[in-house]
């Protein structure tokens, strides 16, 4: 018993140090900062926030909530019907379309927004094309402000609904629906009385997720908002204007919203709900036999596919437009591989790619080791305060990236024991640290999933056969959980490569990553090079996802 306890404590020490130093302490520093004005303790920042003096803040908070609610609504309206059609009906091309349906997730948020701007923005290709086709005087519409943000959100976030509802639908034991039908219920009755209630947990989970993600959304408002204020963006502006106290206050308020959502979600998922008593017998798809309906569905599928893949295609095409060849013309005129050639020849252009890869690699190495140990302690060890540790680990996931960035700025703009007495802000290493902190939960979550599947008796068997703990961990536990750890790490890598909000708060000239360079190129109206960078990100992500699917059997829906 004592030996076991000693092992647990030895495991917990590094976990607690890291979480305290890089999650708890930064949040605490932000909190302190929010109660300070010119070095004096005060509530003045909060009074300013909610008071009439700075109307903008409260407005931003409401706007954030408003946008998030609408994002949930639109994502659900797209994601749920798609999940139903693709999982319940069989028609030509079904599996292909359902694969395309999750393509938005390979676009990092900044790249996705950029593609939307190219397509539907002020000088967008689609409005101009419509104008020319129909000989209109002016472009019929442009994307921007609230409608733009919502469109991008719906496009990037509906996969959350699509994936959760799909997997819930596949888990519904078809004999339940057959039982209801057998008892005399008609098709509509079966849906409302049986299928729908079984889907509610998935719907609620997806709604919460989308709400949190869009509260935290930074790239879309950053590029599209214009004068429209949202809270995550306000934090950035406060920081840029040097008002760290207000930035801290805004961060605290956004954190409170996000963490209460995290806690609510945990409560909801741990709540006893009606789980399947039986193992699902696999979904049954009814084949669509009526030719008219069948081909209508196929047509809808093709149109949806085109809309979904248009951003990817636009990026690919625009990345071939060399610098300076698309200025006043409506459409680009010249295409070549100049942008990609420069990548390998101009160190200024290659540097961001190298930075991104290196920093993501370092951060993921940290996540890999730390996530693995943390997950093992959380799932397989008993200790007091486990629940608290579990929440602490998930906090970086719930906190908006902007807040994580602010926390790190406020914690490490002065020497601290956790940075070995150095000021980290303004150095190279602050960004890898930010990526590491942000993506710990991804590795922990995916490792938890496999560890929970692994029966305790496996470890006991090894021990019984004479193996010491470390040997058991290396030879038995590690090989079994490796797919989970790796899929989490690869996902973390993908996200780290595309990460924008923390990058924009923390980058320096030396470590500027791809996302920052995209922003710079956009500012210089060098759209081709920006698109080329975007393509590199998309390419990296596609490779990683393909590898993790092919070699570790990781399904993309497990990566949420």
């Amino acid at each position: 018993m004592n030996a076991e306890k000693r092992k647990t404590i030895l495991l917990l020490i590094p976990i607690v140090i890291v979480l305290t130093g890089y999650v708890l302490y930064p949040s605490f520093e932000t909190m302190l900062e929010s109660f300070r004005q010119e070095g004096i303790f005060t509530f003045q920042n909060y009074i300013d926030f909610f008071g009439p003096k700075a109307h903008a803040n409260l407005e931003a908070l409401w706007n954030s909530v408003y946008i998030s609610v609408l994002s949930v609504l639109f994502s659900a309206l797209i994601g749920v019907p798609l999940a139903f059609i693709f999982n319940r009906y069989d028609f030509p091309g079904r599996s292909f379309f359902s694969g395309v349906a999750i393509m938005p997730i390979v676009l990092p948020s900044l790249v996705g927004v950029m593609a939307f701007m190219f397509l539907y923005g002020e000088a967008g290709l689609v409005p101009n094309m419509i104008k020319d086709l129909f000989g209109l005087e002016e472009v019929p519409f442009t994307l921007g402000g609230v409608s733009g943000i919502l469109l991008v959100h719906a496009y990037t976030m509906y996969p959350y609904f699509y994936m959760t509802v799909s997997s819930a639908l596949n888990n519904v034991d078809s004999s339940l629906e057959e039982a209801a039908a057998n008892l005399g219920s008609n098709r509509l009755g079966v849906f409302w009385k049986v299928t729908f209630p079984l889907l509610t947990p998935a719907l609620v989970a997806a709604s919460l997720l989308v709400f949190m993600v869009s509260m935290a959304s930074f790239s879309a408002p950053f590029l599209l908002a214009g004068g429209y204020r949202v809270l995550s963006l306000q934090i950035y502006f406060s920081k840029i204007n040097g008002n760290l106290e207000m930035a801290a206050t805004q961060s605290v308020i956004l954190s409170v919203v996000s963490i209460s959502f995290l806690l609510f979600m945990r409560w909801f998922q741990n709540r006893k709900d009606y789980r399947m008593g039986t193992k699902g017998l696999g979904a049954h798809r009814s084949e669509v036999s009526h030719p008219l309906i069948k081909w209508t569905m196929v047509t809808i599928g093709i149109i949806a596919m085109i809309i979904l893949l248009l951003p990817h295609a636009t990026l690919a095409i625009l990345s071939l437009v060399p610098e300076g060849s698309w200025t006043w013309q409506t459409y680009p005129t010249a295409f070549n591989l100049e942008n990609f050639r420069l990548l390998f020849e101009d160190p200024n252009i290659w540097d961001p790619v190298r930075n991104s890869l290196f920093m993501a690699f370092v951060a993921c190495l940290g996540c890999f080791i730390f996530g693995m140990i943390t997950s093992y302690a959380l799932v397989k060890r008993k200790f007091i305060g486990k629940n608290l540790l579990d929440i602490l680990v998930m906090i970086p996931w719930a906190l908006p990236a902007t807040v994580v960035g602010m926390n790190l700025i406020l914690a490490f703009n002065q020497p601290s024991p956790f940075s070995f007495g150095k000021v980290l802000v303004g150095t190279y290493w602050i960004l890898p640290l930010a990526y590491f902190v942000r993506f710990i939960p991804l590795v922990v979550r995916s490792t938890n999933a496999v560890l929970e599947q692994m029966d305790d008796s496996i470890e006991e068997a090894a021990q019984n056969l004479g193996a010491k703990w470390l040997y058991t961990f290396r030879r038995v536990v590690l090989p079994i959980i490796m797919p989970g750890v790796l899929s989490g790490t690869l996902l973390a890598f993908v996200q780290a490569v595309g990460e924008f909000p923390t990058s924009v708060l923390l980058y320096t000239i030396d470590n500027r990553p791809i996302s920052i360079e995209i922003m710079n190129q956009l500012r210089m109206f060098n759209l081709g090079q920006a698109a080329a960078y975007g393509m590199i990100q998309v390419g990296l992500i596609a490779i990683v996802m393909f590898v993790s699917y092919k070699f570790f059997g990781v399904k993309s829906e497990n990566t949420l």
Partner: protein
Amino acid sequence: MSSVNLSNITKKFGDFTAVKELDLIINEGEFFTFLGPSGCGKTTTLRIIAGFYYPSKGKVKFNDRDMTTVSPEKRNTGMVFQNYALFPHMTVFENVAFGLKVRKTKKPEIKRRVEDVLEKVYLKQFIDRQVSQLSGGQQQRVALARALVIEPDILLLDEPLSNLDARLRDEMRNEILRLQREYGITTVYVTHDQVEALSMSDRIAVFNAGKCQQIGSPTEIYNQPVNDFVAEFIGETNLFDVELESDEPEKLRFFNSSLDTNIYVDNTPKQIAACQENDQLRMSIRPEAIDVKKTVSENENTIQGKVKMVQFTGEAVHTFIELNENITLKATDLNRGPSTYLNEGEEVYVRLPSEQIRIVPKVKR
């Protein structure tokens, strides 16, 4: 090979007492079974022997060595888990070789011993398979081989057959017994299946609610249960309350108030369990001991009844006989052809032979 000596073992989980004041000696080379319903403490006791739990009180000894707080990997026991706990990422060979590798056995030696043991469990040809490609029975054999190959001092089996279907279970029962005899290993076997326990064990310990109720050979446990829990849990029985009426050296006279009948029982230790002064008494009679006749006879302990239901199971015929609205007896006979079956509704006379009745105290709750 070792003997196991548990003295005064108590194991608590928080407020819940899983095992209470257990004293037990398992002899060298013995096949010893822990039998009881789920949650009775039998698996906890096994895990205390394996070292996965340390007792809250009491001592565990292998031979004369105190093992109470020795960690599991240093006990040299071989455990077969209920779910087999095979390492899913290893082949059959790697699984079986695991314990030998940990013991730093030389490679050729490992190969020889793994092949040896796999031959014994008839799995030699599957040596390079992944364990997930094996059937349930084959996985069970791998688990057994993995535990046996390290030549453990004690073999521990935790409900090893509960995941197999009935036919395979019979087969594996003989298999395990054969291997145990061949290796002569001290074996502790946990099960809730009384048929397994009775047919395999040298001795059985019957557990209920954390307490060991009785330790004895299968025939002792079946024929001379110490209380009504053991009588009811092992095999089938008819139990009803009785009171002692008169105390004579040859025969005791008991009275059942519901039937309003006297019941005579031979006054020998085989028929009468040890009782305390104020124990409530019950009589137990096995269905196969009951004598059912269509005609009245003058023998003692004969009661009139009516056939309620006849159940045919193939080898045997169960007859349920209603004595009054509260008491229905079950009588079992081997199948001797259709002419011997009773009809439902028939009036019959049941005799409870005085040398077959067992008087037991009721367990206090």
